[in-house]
C-alpha cells in the first residue's frame, strides 16, 4: 500500500513529461469525452458497493452459523465446521464464481427448480460463501476469547444455549469480533472485482469496457486503482474508528 503511494505519483510525473506513454485526455474531466468517460467509469461504483455490502451482510450471518458448531463439545459438529472452513478456504474465488454462475443453475434445474442466477446475485453468493469461512474463524476466535466461566455462570442461572449466546457471550465477544469483521469487508470489496468476468457492470468491468474502445489501459486502470483505493481507505478509516470505540468501551 505504502509502496503504491510512492510509485503512482512518480508514474504520473513521468506521464506528464512524455506524452508518448501517457494520454490523460481519455479521462480529462475538462473535456466533453473525458468527462463522459470518467462518469462511465465511476458509475460502476454503486454496483461494487452494493455487491460488497450485501455479500458482507450475508457472510456475517453465514459465518456465525458456521462458527457455532465449531464451538460445540460434540466432535461431529466441530467436524462439520472444520470441513466447511477448510473446504471453502481452499477454493480460489474465480473457479467458485464460475461454478456458482454457470454450474449452480444447472444443479437447480436438475432438482426441477428454475432459479436463474444473474451476475449480481452470482457475485454476491460467491463472495458471501468465500468470505464466510474467514468470518466464521473470526467469530470462533472472538467467542473462545470469552472465559469459560462466563458460559458456566450463565448455565447455572438457567439460561439455555441461545440465551447464553445472546445475552452473555456475544455482547462480550462483539468488541473483539467487530474490528476484524470490518477489516474483512476490505477483502470483499477487492474481491468483488472478479464479478467483472461474469458481466457484472461494476468498477472493473466498466474500466475493461472503456479500455477496449479507447485503447488507453494505463490511464484507465490507474484511475480504477484509485477508485478502489478511495473505497478501501474510507473503510479502513471506519475500522480504525471502530477499534478506538471498542477499545474505549473495554476500558470504561
Amino acid at each position, binding site marked *: 500500500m505504502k509502496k503504491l503511494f510512492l510509485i503512482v505519483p512518480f508514474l504520473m510525473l513521468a506521464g506528464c513529461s512524455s506524452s508518448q506513454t501517457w494520454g490523460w485526455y481519455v479521462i480529462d474531466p475538462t473535456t466533453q469525452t473525458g468527462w463522459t468517460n470518467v462518469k462511465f467509469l465511476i458509475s460502476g461504483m454503486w454496483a461494487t458497493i452494493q455487491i460488497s455490502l450485501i455479500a458482507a451482510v450475508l457472510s456475517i450471518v453465514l459465518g456465525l452459523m458456521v462458527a457455532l458448531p465449531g464451538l460445540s463439545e460434540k466432535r461431529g459438529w466441530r467436524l462439520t465446521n472444520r470441513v466447511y472452513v477448510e473446504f471453502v478456504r481452499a477454493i480460489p474465488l474465480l473457479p467458485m464464481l464460475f461454478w456458482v454462475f454457470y454450474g449452480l443453475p444447472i444443479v437447480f434445474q436438475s432438482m426441477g427448480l428454475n432459479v436463474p442466477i444473474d451476475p449480481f446475485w452470482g457475485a454476491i453468493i460467491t463472495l458471501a460463501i468465500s468470505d464466510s469461512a474467514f468470518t466464521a474463524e473470526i467469530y470462533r476466535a472472538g467467542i473462545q476469547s470469552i*472465559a469459560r*466461566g*462466563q458460559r*458456566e*455462570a*450463565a*448455565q*447455572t*442461572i*438457567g*439460561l*439455555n444455549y441461545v*440465551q447464553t449466546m445472546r*445475552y*452473555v457471550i456475544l*455482547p*462480550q465477544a462483539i468488541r473483539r469480533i467487530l474490528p476484524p469483521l470490518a477489516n474483512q469487508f476490505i477483502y470483499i470489496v477487492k474481491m468483488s472485482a472478479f464479478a467483472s468476468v461474469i458481466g457484472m457492470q461494476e468498477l472493473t468491468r466498466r474500466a475493461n469496457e472503456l479500455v477496449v474502445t479507447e485503447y488507453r489501459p494505463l490511464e484507465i486502470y490507474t484511475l480504477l486503482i484509485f477508485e478502489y483505493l478511495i473505497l478501501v481507505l474510507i473503510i479502513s478509516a471506519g475500522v480504525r474508528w471502530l477499534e478506538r470505540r471498542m477499545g474505549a468501551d473495554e476500558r470504561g
Partner: protein
Amino acid sequence: MSDAAIELAGVNKWFDTFHVLKDINLTVKNGERVVICGPSGSGKSTVVRCINQLEKHQQGTIRVDGVELTDDPKSAASIRSEVGMVFQQFNLFPHLTVLENLTLGPIKARGLSRKDAEEKARKYLDRVHIPDQADKRPVQLSGGQQQRVAIARSLCMEPRVLLFDEPTSALDPEMISEVLDVMVELAQEGMTMVVVTHEMGFARKVADKMIFMDAGEIVEEGHPEHFFTNPQSERCRKFLSQILQH
C-alpha cells in the same frame, strides 16, 4: 418428595484415562450443610461441577431433588435452575450492571417481569449487605463485593441447593470474612449448602457434615466434632494438621 436434596451413588468419572472420581457416595439432606475439603487436585471441584452438570459423570447416579440427572438437555436446564453455584472466580457478567446480573436469570429463564425481577434482586442485594451498588458494573466493586453479588445472583433463582466452589480463595484476606458472614447467615436461614472450602473456622461453625477427599475418593466423612478432634484416617489427620496451622 424425597428427604435428600442431592444423592450421589457410585459415581465414577474419568478425564480421558485419568480416574478423577472414584465411587463417590454422598447424600445431602434438605437443609443440611456439607463442607468438602481435601488437597488440591483431589476432585472437589469436579464433584460439585457434576452435581450441576457442568461436567458429566460416566458411571453411577446423581439425583437432585429425587430426579436423576440424564443427558436430556431439558432436564439439565430445569435441574440447573434448582441448583445455584458460586464460583471461585465470581464469574459475574462484566458487560452488565449489578442489577442486570441479578435479573438476567429470573427474567430469561424464569419468565419474571422486569419489575418483579428487580424487586427480587434488590431484596437479595440487601441480604448480602450491598443495597446501594445496584447500578455499578462488577469491575467497580471490590472482590468481596463481587462475590456477594455472585451469591445474590444465585439466590435470585431461589435454588433448592447452593453449591460453593472455594468462594473465598480468590479474595484478599481482609475481604474473606464479609463473604463468610453472608454464607453463615444463609446457613442459619436453613439453606441447603455444599461448600468446598479450606476455611475450617467456617466449617466448624456451620457444617452438619464434613467430607475429606483425596485422589478422587471420599476418604473420610463425619460430623465436624469427630472430624476435627478425632479423624480416622492418616491422610485426613495430616491434611488437617497442615491446614489448621495457618
